[in-house]
């Protein structure tokens, strides 16, 4: 934290006191104005941020015919509420649905796999970078920062070409490894910052008690870093679940391998699937993130301020 220089309080000589009177009415006017403006901003932003999600839900329980007949109405009539869109979007293609159940399984597996693998690799890495002295430590830190800032579109071309050449492009495992490579830098960054806040004396005490390096890491530092690891896990899950570009590049050809994001994007281009059905798909795509988010708002916002996605 940067400490700001304290502004010395001016002595209240008569000369200094004079402008205060002149400003008195301005002060009242401004205070009143900002009290009103503040609420306008809050309400305005609340409407803008929440309305699209509200709209998503209402459309998902309405019938497409009623939407086209009356697009200005933003609430569903009680009589027309139905969950047909959900059954339709979740049913497999063979049963005349859109096969989102399969997409959810793929997305879930990829996201959970990415979280597990990223943590497994990033935790020791972050610990080493924050605690151990070794040659090239600073360079490695800088490398991770640079990688974290580099956007995925630049990697799209070579990775696409490379895995096409190997004939492995459609493999879900390949997508998972690519996701890990995308999240590992930010994970190390977040976790490193946390490990640095753990007092070294704790670890020295453990070492005196005869614990080795790895033992200290597992028994002392990891449990202390629990909350940070948790918020990092949520953050990585969010990135992997929401990811679109690599899923598009790698899996687009085989509908059985689509993730929820990819499925929704691909189907929203076709005219055959009614918008209301796809809205149900959007709700299904968004819901896990919202549940995780509200279930752990504090954790996730800590995670978000510690790092961020691209």
């Amino acid at each position, binding site marked *: *934290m940067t400490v*700001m220089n304290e502004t010395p309080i001016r002595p209240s000589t008569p000369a200094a006191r004079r*402008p205060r009177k002149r400003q008195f009415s301005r002060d009242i006017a401004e205070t009143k104005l*900002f009290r009103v403006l*503040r609420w306008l*901003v809050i309400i305005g*932003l*609340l409407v*803008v*941020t*929440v309305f699209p999600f509200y*709209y*998503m839900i209402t459309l998902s329980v309405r019938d497409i015919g009623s939407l086209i007949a009356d*697009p*200005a109405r933003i609430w569903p009539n009680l009589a027309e509420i139905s969950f047909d869109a959900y059954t339709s979007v979740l049913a497999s293609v063979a049963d005349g649905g859109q096969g989102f159940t399969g997409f959810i399984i793929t997305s879930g597996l990829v996201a959970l796999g990415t979280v597990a693998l990223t943590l497994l*690799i990033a935790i*020791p*890495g972050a*610990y*080493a*970078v924050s605690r*151990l*002295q*070794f040659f090239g430590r600073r360079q490695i830190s800088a*490398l991770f*920062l*640079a*990688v974290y*800032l*580099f*956007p995925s*579109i630049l*990697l799209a*071309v*070579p*990775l696409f*070409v490379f895995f096409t050449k190997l*004939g492995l492009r459609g493999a879900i495992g390949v997508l998972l490894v*690519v996701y890990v*490579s995308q999240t*590992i*830098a930010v994970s190390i*960054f977040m976790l490193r910052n946390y490990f640095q806040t753990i007092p070294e004396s704790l670890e020295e005490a453990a070492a005196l008690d005869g614990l080795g390096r790895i033992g200290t890491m597992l028994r002392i530092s990891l449990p202390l870093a629990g909350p940070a690891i948790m918020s990092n896990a949520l953050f990585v899950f969010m990135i992997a679940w*929401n990811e679109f*570009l690599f899923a598009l590049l790698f899996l687009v050809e085989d509908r059985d391998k689509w993730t929820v*994001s990819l499925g*929704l*994007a691909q189907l*929203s281009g076709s005219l055959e699937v009614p*918008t209301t059905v*796809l*809205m149900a798909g*959007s709700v299904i795509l*968004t819901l896990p*993130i919202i549940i995780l*988010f509200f279930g752990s*708002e504090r954790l996730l*916002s800590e995670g*978000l*301020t510690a790092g961020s996605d691209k």
Partner: protein
Amino acid sequence: MSTTTTLRRKGSVSRRQARAGIALVSPSVIIVLVLVVLPILWTVMLAFQDVRLIQIRRANLFGNYTLDNFINVLTSEALWSSLGTTLTYSVLGTGGAIVVGLMAALALRNAFRGRTLVRAAMLLPYVSPVVAAAFVWKTMLNPQFGVVNAWGTGALGWDQPVSFLTTRTSEVEILGLTVPVPTALFTVIAFEIWRTFPFVFLFVTARLQAVPKSIEEAARMDGAVPTQMFRHILLPQLLPTIAVLSVLRFIWTFNNFDDVYLLTGGGAGTEVVSVGVFNYLIGRGDIGSASAQALVLAAILTVMVLIYMKFAVKDEEVA
């Protein structure tokens, strides 16, 4: 124990530590090297070759170097116009996100009932999947059954529905003057601001919590009014954070692919450079030109990352 043995023991401890450190960090480094650094280097090689997607399985990827791709990409009108589009998109998108995020953080600074919930709601656009968000926006803006056009033509009295995402420019009358407005581009910028202002909001809120109240109280005693307090007390303290956020957001907006691709597919005057790279690669199957264009993007980006690192050294806490 003599000093030499202590020294030797110290030496072996640090050597052991170094070995442990390298062992623990190497899986991360290997993954990053293999899947990020090497591919970037390989892009450089691809950019100097004439490689097509169709013959990729047979092509020899180490030979026949040529400058054609760069000549192609750099002399094409498309690159320069899309660089202009990208710049407008990033400057307005970043600026908008900073202004809205700052306003949100200031408005929510003082506690009130339900503030926690409002704060959480502010983050919704940022955490929700971009595909779902883009789809809802597309539906809301749909000229046939979208709510925006339904209200616009109904309550607001527009002559006809506006196809926000497929209109390149539309004439808008402001104070009697007819001004051409890049409709689709402004719409994707609005979407970008909507999706990323929470990021700014989050960081500015965190920074605001660290501003000591005592300074403001002192200024208040001195007769400072709210605008003066913001200008002379809050803003100077927030400025380093805002600077870092601007660079960070600018870098990411500059390279953003998802938002534009999902909303317009790069049509109607919204083709940013990253969508151009994608179109070269998938649409035309021209790997060489896609790589060359990606490198142009990377070169600009490298400059920006260096700028960011300069800032980040000064203000590590935000990184």
